[in-house]
């Protein structure tokens, strides 16, 4: 595999809805604690609709971090590639939130700018109720999630190194 020219690590989820904020939490930790090669961008995208395509189209490889509604215990990790996403049905789109991750990839297939490498690092949430902050089980899943991202980056030829002086992650929504 040739090394992708650009890699995006994208956190998805609503930081005001409990464990749905796991994506933003993980990417902020990653950004604060690791020195990443210049071709890697990290972003907290919140809960985008088709706005996602703008961020996906700029990268040859993407790693998405998101809460996933999968069978299993809260805090377990699940990994998905593009083939897994392709198997998901498209649902009716009523509001601009409804186009899901798979819709964004389908759309980009049509325009020819879909990233060629896709990994979803999914975390099974415990609660998605109103309130900022993660449940204990999901917080414990964040270190393995970061390890998984670092592993994928290494596979893509982008080696991250721990910062000599780690920064403080910008988790403004967690402040009391």
């Amino acid at each position, binding site marked *: 595999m040739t090394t992708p020219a650009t890699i995006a690590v994208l956190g998805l989820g609503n930081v005001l809805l409990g464990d749905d904020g796991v994506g933003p939490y993980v990417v902020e930790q990653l950004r604060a604690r690791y020195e990443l090669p210049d071709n890697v961008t990290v972003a907290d995208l919140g809960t985008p609709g088709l*706005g996602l395509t703008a961020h996906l189209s700029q990268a040859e490889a993407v790693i998405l971090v998101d809460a996933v*509604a999968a069978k299993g215990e809260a805090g377990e990790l699940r990994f998905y590639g593009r083939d897994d996403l392709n198997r998901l049905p498209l*649902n009716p789109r009523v*509001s601009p*939130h409804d186009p*899901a991750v798979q819709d964004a990839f389908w759309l980009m297939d049509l325009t020819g700018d879909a990233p060629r490498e896709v990994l979803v690092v999914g975390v099974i*949430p415990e609660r998605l109720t*109103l309130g900022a902050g993660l449940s204990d089980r999901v917080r414990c899943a964040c270190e393995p999630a970061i390890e998984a991202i670092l592993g994928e980056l290494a596979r893509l030829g982008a080696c991250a190194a721990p910062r000599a002086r780690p920064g403080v992650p910008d988790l403004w929504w967690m402040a009391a």
Partner: protein
Amino acid sequence: MARITVDPITRIEGHLRIDAVVDGGEVQKAWASCSMWRGIETILLGRDPREAWLFTQRFCGVCTTVHAIASVRAVEDALGMEIPLNAQYIRNLILIAHALHDHIVHFYHLSALDWVDVTTIPQADPVKTAALAESLSDWTRNSDKEMKQVQTKIIGLVQSGQLGIFANGYWGHPAMKLPPDVNLLAVAHYLQALEFQRKANQIVGILGGKTPHIQNVAVGGVMNAINLNSLGALNMDRLYMMKDLFDEVIPFVQQVYFVDAIAIAALYADWFDVGAGVKNYLSVPDLALDPASTKFDLPGGTIFDGDLASVHPITSSRDEYFRKGVTEDVTHGYYEGRGAQHPWQGETKPDFTDFQDDGKYSWVKAPRFQGKPMQVGPLANVLVGYALGNELMKKWTDIALAKVSEIAKRPITIDKMHSTMGRLLARAIRTVVLSELALRHWELLVKNITGGDSTSYRAPSFPKGEVQGVGFHEAPRGTLSHWVVAKDGVIANYQAVVPTTWNASPRDEGGTPGPYEASLLKNPVADAEKPLEVLRTVHSFDPCMACACHTLDVEGRTIATVKVL
């Protein structure tokens, strides 16, 4: 008789549900409901009002900027603050660019495929498609070569049996009427639109620092450092980068989106007779032109009973007509109590029951203006502007209606705008108006900066005791208002009355339905299993239940899409 439930559980929670009873090929009664608690404002209680915008920006991942700006406006209103002119212009440019992006996405990617049958495209003739396109518009990307390329892509999809992004349409539905050439043209522009909505969003990024969550807003102005010669600041380079992007997006809006909306409206002219619903309209003034926010480029006001002569202006957020007019009724919402309260007194105490046709059935409260349901959105914005004699609104509305009438070969007048198609056409009219205002506000900003003003922020100060304010914004989906009460510098109450709560409002204490519910009465339904026509009317409002969460559903449940009982 059949009962249809459209219930897309794509995000598990926080979505819109529509129920309709269909008999004799028409909807006889409808309910609009939201399935998630909307008390997200309670997260703000006890916080510093200067930080509220950071949180409100996360209410909705699609309309981030609008909630940020409405929030700082609410706090500034509570403090009676003026903000620097540069801050007004910069905010206006962000709001315009966001709206251009959002309206383009709505038309092409969220609603066009209700009217355009992708599966007929293999029968289209790309040469005739290009000739048709060139007869309608000067757009440079309508060549037969371009059309042929798009057709080849679609033929590939259709032959593979994998329709990809088009997999979930109601293809071959009897309500689909466009000839294959028009369908091909629309899908060619659907693909081009992806490119231009991104460019519009890049403008938001240049000013806001990042998208989707802008970083530059503050109570008291914006945090953009302005220095024409400094690399890190808002300088000439960035101003012209922004202008170049507008110069690409504006022709797309004027020569493609506006033209396509007119063509679809004319070819489906019978949809000007469907979906009027609530003919009371509310819109607020926006694009402020002075530090005190008393002069605006877009006017606001109310219209009752569809009578344009009844128009009553809303002059600013200080206008008591607006401040006192708004209430929220919880009779049919999953909240404690009955009746209506003003947002500053509003409570958000959940009282969940099941879906009860005649009882509580939605997490949306029922906003009312002077006790009446109001329709908000581009149609309200256009009609109020038209009725108040706003020059740009009048100009573009008259152009659109003349062109639609010419193609439809029947007169489509302003009174036909109270309809499903009127809402779609009004959105295109508003977008083209905003595309003209974009350059005007860019010029105002550049002129003000080159005139020597580099101020963009004034620090707020909070008095002891209680203050209350309202901040509004005429957002892409309509009137948005944030209502804040601060006591000794911390938030004591916060209510966001968002556009979709006006439109998706449930019935109120008097049993009067909200705009979605009313607009669906008599809506045709050819096949209850495939309620395409219901989606047309619902989509025409551009629904957006704020506060979505983003859990990826990997089990691939196909999901109570449409249920006929």
